[in-house]
């Protein structure tokens, strides 16, 4: 038996100043909340509006007015909540998704994203390190998209009452004069373009989820599309409409478009850009890529004569290099999306009724 005391194995019984997990106290509005903001959020978003720590962000719009020919610009305003599991997945995480999701909702309306808010609902027990990783990722995503996070909020819920972390972001952008993109503007003869391969995000998430032991080399396509939309609108200011086909996939976006514009849409199956891995995974899981979510893709409806010009502009941009023309707007079968299959038959592509479910056979 040794009498030597091993000091290296001893630890101080006083509580540590910093916790490794989120506690209920972090949402109390008191000292612990302030600590969380000071140590985790503020260092990531060091900008004068946020650091002022007012109850609200005060925004100066004078530069927009100048850029808009001294006219008050129209504002675009959107909000979205993010609840993805797993929190971290190949190609992204919930933080990156929360920033780009809102950026893209602004961008596809022709808006130039400017300001972002983020509200966090944290579940007691979430690892502070995970939260830091998510915040760092959001910071990088904001820089990538050129948007400024100007206000935020944090709440903590009891363990078991949340799913680690929920994030809600809202975004404000301004719409330059003359841009009137709308889901109601598609006209017969217009062409439908897509900015790249479909289904990458949804299949990546599904392959990561517990219970599906199915590995792919896929990455989520999560990306900010505002650079791409600007390039496209520069090439063709008359673009009728753009949508980002997130939940519900390409089929939901196109069905909404057909209904709103009272037109039919004809798709060519052979022209749909789908990665081999996504096709393979969908075949095995009994899913249809047209219904699988995307997080870095957009659909554009463009006048027929501008198709090549817009496609060129898309393909020159890193987030549009696999862009393709996938269909046409028609006057026939209004309110319906019809797909011509690779072997020449046709079928109606309906809206997803509920969740897309793997089939037995």
């Amino acid at each position, binding site marked *: 038996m040794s009498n030597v005391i091993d000091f290296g194995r001893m630890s101080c019984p006083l509580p540590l100043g910093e916790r490794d997990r989120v506690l209920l106290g972090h949402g109390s509005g008191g000292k612990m909340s302030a600590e969380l903001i000071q140590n985790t959020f503020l260092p990531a978003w060091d900008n004068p509006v946020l650091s002022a720590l007012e109850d609200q962000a005060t925004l100066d719009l004078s530069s927009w007015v100048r850029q808009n020919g001294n006219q008050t610009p129209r504002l675009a305003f959107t909000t979205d909540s993010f609840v993805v599991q797993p929190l971290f997945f190949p190609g992204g995480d919930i933080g990156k998704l929360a920033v780009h999701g809102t950026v893209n909702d602004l961008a596809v309306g022709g808006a130039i994203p400017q300001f972002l808010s983020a509200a966090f609902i944290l579940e007691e027990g979430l690892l502070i390190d995970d939260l830091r990783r998510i915040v760092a990722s959001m910071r990088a995503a904001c820089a990538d998209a050129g948007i400024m996070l100007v206000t935020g909020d944090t709440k903590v819920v009891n363990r078991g009452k949340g799913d680690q972390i929920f994030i809600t972001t809202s975004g404000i952008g301004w719409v330059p004069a003359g841009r009137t993109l709308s889901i109601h503007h598609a006209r017969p003869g217009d062409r439908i373009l897509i900015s790249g391969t479909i289904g990458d995000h949804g299949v990546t998430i599904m392959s990561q989820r517990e*219970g*599906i*032991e*199915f590995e792919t080399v896929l990455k989520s396509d999560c990306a900010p599309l505002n650079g791409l939309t600007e390039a496209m609108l520069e090439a063709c200011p008359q673009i009728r409409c753009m949508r980002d086909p997130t939940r519900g996939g390409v089929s939901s976006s196109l069905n909404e478009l057909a209904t709103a514009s009272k037109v039919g849409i004809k798709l060519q199956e*052979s022209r749909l850009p789908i990665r*081999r891995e996504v*096709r*393979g995974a969908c*075949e095995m*899981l*009994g899913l249809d890529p047209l219904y699988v979510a995307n997080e870095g893709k957009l659909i554009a409806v463009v006048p027929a004569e501008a198709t090549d010009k817009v496609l060129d502009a898309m393909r020159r941009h890193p987030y549009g290099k696999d862009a393709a023309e996938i269909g046409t707007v028609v006057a026939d*079968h*209004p*309110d*319906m999306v*019809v797909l*011509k*299959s*690779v*072997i*020449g*038959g*046709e*079928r*109606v592509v*309906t809206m997803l*009724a*509920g969740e897309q*479910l*793997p*089939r*037995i*056979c």
Partner: protein
Amino acid sequence: MRFQDEYRDPVAAAKLQTAIARVATRPWTIMEVCGGQTHTIVKYGIDELLPPQVELVHGPGCPVCVTPLELIDKAIAIAGRPEVIFCSFGDMLRVPGSQSDLFSTKASGGDIRVVYSPLDCLKIAEQNPHRVVVFFAVGFETTAPANAMAVAQAKKRNLNNFAVLVSHVIVPPAMTAILSSPNNRVQGFLGAGHVCAVMGYEEYIPIAEEFQIPIVVTGFEPLDLLEGIYECICMLEQNRIGVGNQYSRAVRREGSPLAIQLIHDVFEVGDRKWRGIGTIPNSGYRLAPAYEQFDAEQRFDVAQFAVQESELCISGQILQGIKKPHQCQAFCKTCTPEHPLGATMVSSEGACAAYYNYGRLRHPMAVGSETYQIHRRDRIGNVTLD
């Protein structure tokens, strides 16, 4: 993608389409048995590529469609129990029982999980020793070997907290029932390729001979279907009776002896109720006595559940190819894909759901309107409208 694109080649499809039009000199009604084949037909619009004299009828081979109402009710009763983790293939969750569906049970607190393999359930059972894991063992002979394997493994591993709610159906008795019906219109069958990959096709030879029909075992890709249809029409035109095998890359005459042995070890053949059709003798599997301990119906005392189908729904006649969806008074009125009354509107590959969608394309004004009139002969989805 290899081993897939080859079977979706448009040039080869066009050749087969021409060949079918050339050989079909008379009207023929062919039934594809399997829901997977129906899915391909609907997804690729294969029925539209056929000449008007060839009519495809969707058979009862969609396991979601034919699972009887009371079994869904039993599943819901079991899944709602606090000690149960209920595991199922995904598409069963949406199927309505008499009052509710499994999705609603999940929302009310039932622990319901989608699995891709019954063997996943054994892992869940091992991880949750204080709860009972119940697997909804649904399907035809195709899913039977994996389900049998799960039960056999559970017994080997002494997993007492695992049970199966069995609703296994068998194809040949259903084909016999359809052919025996006085209203039968089916003149030839496309046999279910995956079922035959397991069971082989010897058991279809007596059916072909008894009813003097051709049966062509067929695969699931568009070219498989077109080739199966072509072979079936050739046999019909030449009055040849017997079993052909279009799907030879997967199906052998004797099937998979190992899989068959496993099925026969764990299950025994018994009468089974089919949704919309009724009880067909010897048309299903139930657990053999040696495996009764894994029977969820006994464990949870739900064996006596009995439910009446909607009286309005004629899905039984539709599944047998006797009536057409638009001949049902509930079609598009009280029965839609969002609120299905019966089997054939539930699954996307069910005849009524397919017809609903295709009807929208061909007759945009017709659906849902009281003046649903068809004035011309036209093939829509799986049926012929007169």
